[in-house]
């Protein structure tokens, strides 16, 4: 573990500095400063949650496809099977695996995003 400071602490320090100077910036730069602060938040969440999310995604895709591989290999394989029609919306377990993966991805990218509501069962 590299610490004193940890990577998250460095990110927080930079984010805090951006916040402090934002009010002095012209409107365009103030907007970009907000985007930059958001980018740091994404990095922070990815540092904390990324490894577990990727491991879980790999496991789900492995189970769905019946093979091992990295998450990139498994995603590529799944894309090929979907493109060739070997799998589609009605393939058992497909939507559940994709949903679980994307829920963890959006928790990193945009945790406050309010997704399309599910239809009540």
């Amino acid at each position, binding site marked *: 573990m590299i610490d004193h400071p940890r990577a998250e602490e460095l990110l927080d320090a930079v984010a805090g500095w951006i916040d402090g100077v934002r009010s002095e910036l012209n409107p365009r730069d103030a907007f970009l400063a907000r985007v930059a602060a958001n980018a740091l938040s994404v990095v922070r969440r990815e540092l904390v949650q990324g490894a577990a999310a990727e491991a879980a995604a790999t496991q789900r895709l492995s189970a769905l496809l019946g093979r091992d591989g990295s998450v990139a290999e498994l995603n590529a394989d799944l894309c090929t099977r979907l493109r060739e029609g070997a799998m*589609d919306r009605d393939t058992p377990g497909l939507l559940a695996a994709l949903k679980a993966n994307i829920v963890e991805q959006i928790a990193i990218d945009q945790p406050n995003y*309010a997704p399309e509501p599910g239809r009540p069962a």
Partner: protein
Amino acid sequence: MQGEVFEALKGLAPTLGGEGAQIADLQRLSGGASMETWAFAVVGGRGREELILRRRSAPFDPEAARSVSLEVEAALITAASAVGAPVAPLVHLARPQDGLGEAHITRRISGETLGRKIVSDPRFEAVRPGLARQCGAILAQIHSATPPAGLKSVDALEELARYEEVYRNSGAERPILELAFQHLKKHAPPPRPAVLLHGDFRNGNLMVDPEQGVAAVLDWELSHLGDPAEDLGWICVNSWRFGRSDRPVGGFGEYRDLLDGYVAAGGEEIPLSRVLYWQALGSLKWGVMCLMMYASYANGTEVSVERPMIGRRVSETEIDLVTLLENGL
């Protein structure tokens, strides 16, 4: 650039405001790489009038572009106005001798265009419940208008083919986008006669007044001919609901109100399933556009911090698409 625009407008002032009219308060509002928007006033014997200048600053290639020329945009505004749709009326289409290049001038309509304010600001509480129905009625009007010459016609399969090519060229391998392409290609609704579409009818392109609701439909540059459900579905894409995903139409209303307003204003009955199909296609298009904006950073064309961050919005379209598929799309 401000000086050049001011001089050109000064020359036009008598045309806009009568003999002796003056140009005042010229201010650039926004501008992408190819289009500028300016606000100004003309002050003359008839009083003061607030106007908007739209002006293309980069050469326009009508073959390659998705958007229409400003001349066609002016014709669209006039055609929509003729059938009663609320627009910012055209005041002047620039001629070569005006020195503005490709440009037009419209009246400036007051109100709010920021989607988040329209869905959440208490100022809009009184009009909000009526907005979805009003949007349906406006779309029925637009779809009944006589299209100006020179518009492209696009159906669902052509739209999917266009975006699938862009997606393939990006090299990205995203299973939800792949599934959405294949599913939407397989389940395209039967083709129907094309009508005039706005092409970008969503919360963000509507000027909303706290008393009268939708006061003007803006940004006509993506107008084309196609399936009426394309416009109805686009305003329902969750990315334009600004956090109010529980209100499917623009973050302010219900599907039923949108479709009832459409029929009451003379539009045909359109099944909700067809609107949901186009809503999903809309999410998929927006997802691919986000990928492209990231690509423009990755290949060095754009250096702003904004572009790569938009790439992290692809996942919002993916969670919406997988949910629509779970819901039975």
